[in-house]
């Protein structure tokens, strides 16, 4: 009986091996499996970055999408045979993956495009891929001109000077940063975050918060419906509204600049190709293509020097140098540290009080 099972298993393995051979044969074209978050965002990348990169490198870029890649990364590594090569995921997950041995350490000598990017845009395990921003947005029906509108987080907190209904995200990330800026901390002096101080400042504004939003769509809806007069949404959500003609506006001043990054899974099946692909994906010209198709900013600042992005378009992008310099750059290293995790755990207690 036992022998029968073993031979059965052996047979199955042999078949599996036979099936696997053609794909891994030396004759086959080099390929890489790239995973992003799906939807309009992945479609935009396909046109702007993935297809051109595949063509330029002569490789095949296979795609998969996972809105929440982290648990899959964990199970793939736990199974011992990852199938994904390169993942585009919020930068914090790349860092955490690096700490937990789920992600390959990068050799920047093989990634010249990434090496040319600012040091704070990359880590041993990640290269920033695109930028978005948590911004202060407001209704133009309530604040008709820029002069009367709230411009800083201190204004957002000032309920006397700027009466109106407010919404913040039901999550500590970026919200704690905004609270500290409202309390007078300079955008470049935020980290390590003083969580106690931030929560204390948030207690102040809490009675004036109508909604703590959970989804990006909701944040835009609230502003558009007139349910709130000011909100901290992601920039792409507000710019989508303005394109539809909604009477809303936002400022990058004191925005919180956030990114997703590329990282390579530990023991990726196509490691060598994955490294080539990552380098190409942050190529200045391909990066400059991205904002032509979606409201996200390129992660490689050199993209703004390629001439692909018009100066009018650059003004709208979170990572354009003149916009980036007015914002706080989120420290994913802090958020994925023990202190950051502790802050995330404290959030629920704050909401319930």
């Amino acid at each position, binding site marked *: 009986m036992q022998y029968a099972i073993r031979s059965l298993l052996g047979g199955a393995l042999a078949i599996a091996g036979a099936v696997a051979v053609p794909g891994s044969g030396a004759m086959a074209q080099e390929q890489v499996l790239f995973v992003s978050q799906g939807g309009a965002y992945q479609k935009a990348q396909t046109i702007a970055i993935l297809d051109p990169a595949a063509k330029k490198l002569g490789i095949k870029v296979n795609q998969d999408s996972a809105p929440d890649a*982290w*648990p899959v990364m*964990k199970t793939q590594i736990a199974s011992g045979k990852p199938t994904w090569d390169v993942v585009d995921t919020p930068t914090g997950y790349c860092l955490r993956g690096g700490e937990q041995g789920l992600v390959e350490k990068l050799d920047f000598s093989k990634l010249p495009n990434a090496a040319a990017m600012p040091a704070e845009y990359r880590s041993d395990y990640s290269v920033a891929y695109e930028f978005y921003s948590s911004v202060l947005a407001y209704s133009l029906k309530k604040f008709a001109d820029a002069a009367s509108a709230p411009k800083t987080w201190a204004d957002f907190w000032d309920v006397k000077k700027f009466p109106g*209904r407010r919404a913040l995200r*039901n999550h500590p990330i970026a919200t704690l940063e905004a609270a500290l800026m409202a309390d007078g901390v300079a955008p470049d002096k935020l980290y390590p975050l003083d969580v106690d101080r931030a929560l204390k400042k948030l207690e102040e504004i809490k009675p004036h918060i*109508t*909604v*703590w*939003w*959970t989804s990006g769509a909701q944040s835009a809806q609230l502003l558009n*419906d*007139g*349910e709130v007069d000011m909100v901290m949404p992601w920039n792409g959500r507000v710019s989508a509204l303005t394109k539809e003609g909604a009477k809303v506006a936002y400022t990058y001043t004191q925005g919180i600049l956030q990114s997703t990054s590329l990282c390579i899974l530990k023991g990726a099946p196509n490691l060598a190709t994955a490294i080539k692909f990552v380098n190409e994906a942050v190529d200045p010209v391909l990066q400059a293509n991205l904002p032509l198709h979606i409201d996200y900013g390129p992660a490689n600042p050199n993209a703004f020097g390629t001439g692909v992005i018009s100066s009018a378009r650059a003004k709208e992008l979170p990572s354009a140098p003149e916009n980036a310099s007015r914002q706080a750059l989120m420290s994913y290293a802090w958020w994925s540290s023990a202190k950051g*995790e502790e802050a*995330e*755990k404290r959030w*629920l*207690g704050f*909401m*319930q009080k």
Partner: protein
Amino acid sequence: MAQSATGQDDGEQRLMLLLAVPALLVVSALVLLPLAWLVGQSFWDNGLSFAHYQRVFSEAVYWRSFGLTFRIAALVTIACLLLGYPVAYAAAMAERPWKALILALIVLPFWTSVLVRAYAWLVLLQRTGVVNQMLERVGLISEPLALAHNEFGATLATVHILLPFMVLPIYAAIEKIPPDLMQAAASLGGGPAYAFRRVFLPLSMPGVISGMTLVFILTLGFYITPELLGGGRVVMVSMVVSRNVELYQQWGAASAVGVVLLLIVAAIFYAVSRVVSFDRILGDK
């Protein structure tokens, strides 16, 4: 329940058991096994561990959510009962075409997804919503009322979604009550209110109890409705479960919360069954 002694009944019982085997298999595959897995996970944190339970019992956030969840479940159950009983009564007493119409109106919302209904309530209740605009136009209010993005909105929408689960069991129970009984009570001198209280209401109790049980249990697990209408403030146990999956990246951290909820519900039902005999109410011996 029914304990029979005769040999003929024994044979019939065996046949019944045999017929129940497929159903039992399905139930164990789809309910008992996942439940066992859930309980197992809750004791697992890179090895056998009580860490997840320790957290649930030591941190105040969990108890606040449990308290809120049970409070809302009780509120929803009472509201559904007060609203649902008259509707069930009307449906049971109505003549042919009206009966069908009332039942159709009760069942109709079932065909709309919970998500859509939650959004519909948002459209009605929010600051610029239909209700506030109407009240303002009539002149009853000068400032929009805070109807959504709070506990009120979440509770109201939950009542609406769960109302059929109250109405249908009560309707079924009332349908079974012979109309002659009320006439008999009247002929013996009982006024309508007295007859209702002493004859009709007790006979409809099986429906009331099953309706209340259904609504109460379903509310405990509500997620989308309080998420959309609670404005982030109404943190039910279901939301704590999903938060724990995200935060601890381990099923166990979430499973422990689920297991504790299950045990509390079991304890409540045990306590209630000591006071009220379910068998008696549900019409068994």
